[in-house]
């Protein structure tokens, strides 16, 4: 019960921190993951899931106010699903990785995309609301402040909704796929692919000079060969 309430509070905080108030990095997947993991007593699991979404989404910056997956609430949902599904693996599932990872991906990606659309809808609604206030003869600063506060709280509550929906999405995925969980190495391949895809996005975004490309690729090759030969 207390865990649930704390998770809802954190969901509200990270939702508000993304854009509306603060932007102090709490809504970055890695920090949201650690916070959610700490509440559930699984800090390292939270960090792992946070790291997954950090790599996947860190190259997608809100440049020019562009909409992007709502990472904080979605990551929180993914951590909850991972912790829940991990405990389910002890009940007889043979693959320890695949089930929680798939649930985390479904929760995170589904919640992130849903959050992006919710934020888009919210911005459109605000256009109407503020244009109406600007044209109202009884407009005053107290009303502006009150409406502004309502917007911040509303955005936080929508974030909570996104988090809970992403949990539901992840749990549903786990329940549907649990019969496929005999595959032993599946989690490694699936996880590796998603992390590699995220690294590819980051490579495209940040590694622009030829010498940088050479350093990154040669370094990775040397490390890989050093480990495997």
């Amino acid at each position, binding site marked *: 019960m207390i865990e649930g309430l704390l998770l809802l509070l954190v969901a509200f905080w990270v939702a508000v921190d993304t854009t509306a108030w603060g932007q102090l990095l709490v809504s970055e997947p890695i920090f949201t993951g650690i916070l959610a993991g700490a509440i559930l007593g699984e800090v390292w699991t939270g960090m792992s899931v946070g790291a997954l979404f950090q790599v996947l989404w860190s190259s997608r910056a809100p440049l020019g106010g562009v909409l992007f997956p709502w990472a904080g609430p979605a990551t929180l949902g993914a951590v909850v699903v*991972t912790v829940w599904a991990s405990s389910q693996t002890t009940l007889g599932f043979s693959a320890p990785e695949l089930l929680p990872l798939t649930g985390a991906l479904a929760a995170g990606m589904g919640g992130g995309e849903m959050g992006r659309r919710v934020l888009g809808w919210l911005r459109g609604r605000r256009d109407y609301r*503020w244009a109406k206030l600007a044209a109202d003869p009884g407009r005053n600063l107290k009303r502006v402040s009150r409406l502004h506060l309502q917007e911040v709280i509303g955005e936080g509550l929508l974030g909570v909704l996104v988090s809970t929906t992403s949990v539901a999405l992840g749990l549903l995925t786990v329940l549907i796929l649990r019969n496929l969980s005999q595959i032993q190495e599946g989690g490694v391949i699936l996880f590796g692919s998603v992390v590699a895809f995220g690294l590819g996005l980051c490579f495209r975004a940040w590694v622009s000079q030829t010498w940088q490309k050479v350093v990154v690729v040669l370094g990775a090759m040397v490390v890989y060969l050093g480990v495997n030969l």
Partner: protein
Amino acid sequence: MNLKTRLQLIGSLLGLQGAFSNQFRQGVGALLVLKSVQDEGVSEPEFIDQNLEFFNSHPAMAGPILGAVAGLQAEAKSSNLEKGRLLERAQKLKTALAAPFAAVGDALLWRDLRGGLGLLAVATSLLLDSLWALLAYFLVYNLIHLGLRLYGFFWGFGNPKAAARLLQFPGMQRLVRFSRQFGWIGVAAMSMTLLSSPTVLSTPGLSSTGLFSTGPGLIPVVLAFGLGVFWGHKGWMPFVLVISLGWMFTLLSG
């Protein structure tokens, strides 16, 4: 400026994007920040009309801009002779500085510090099995972010002319040049961390994850990286391909 006004300003500056919309962007937030220097001679509806407009910059870089605008408006309040000229200058300054400051803020804070430094911190944290690197990332980012957003406002308020020239300051230019390196270093660090430590993301639930994978497992990992590099910007489709590939190889290898 008394303590109560300062605290209200900090709250308003942190909530600059609280009512972010397509039409006004940060305009509502900027209005609430500028409320602190409202001229008592101007009625509230008139003040709202003057200041509720499109304003779009980086939220941290908006600190010095709004500080300079508020400084000029405060000057106008106490000066009867140059009032109109100062108010017009404040309005022009707000419009003129928003875009260039946003470009620098987006690159410095969103791309390099939040993204690039974040990746470097996560890689270091995983490699050293410690949360200290993440704490350092949190502190460095917020020192620069809050420094610009909060301190930048009060500094701009006292020095409107200097705030308008912030991007020309050598220290600012050095910071932007230096932080540009975080992105590629972060990619290199994360790649090498995942390749060198196969169980770097080990947890009770995720017992042996990481990029370490030989045999058929390496193929989807390399393909996924390629998809990210060449087609990652095309929205959902590449990601769906990655998941499908992962599943396909998972089923084949199982």
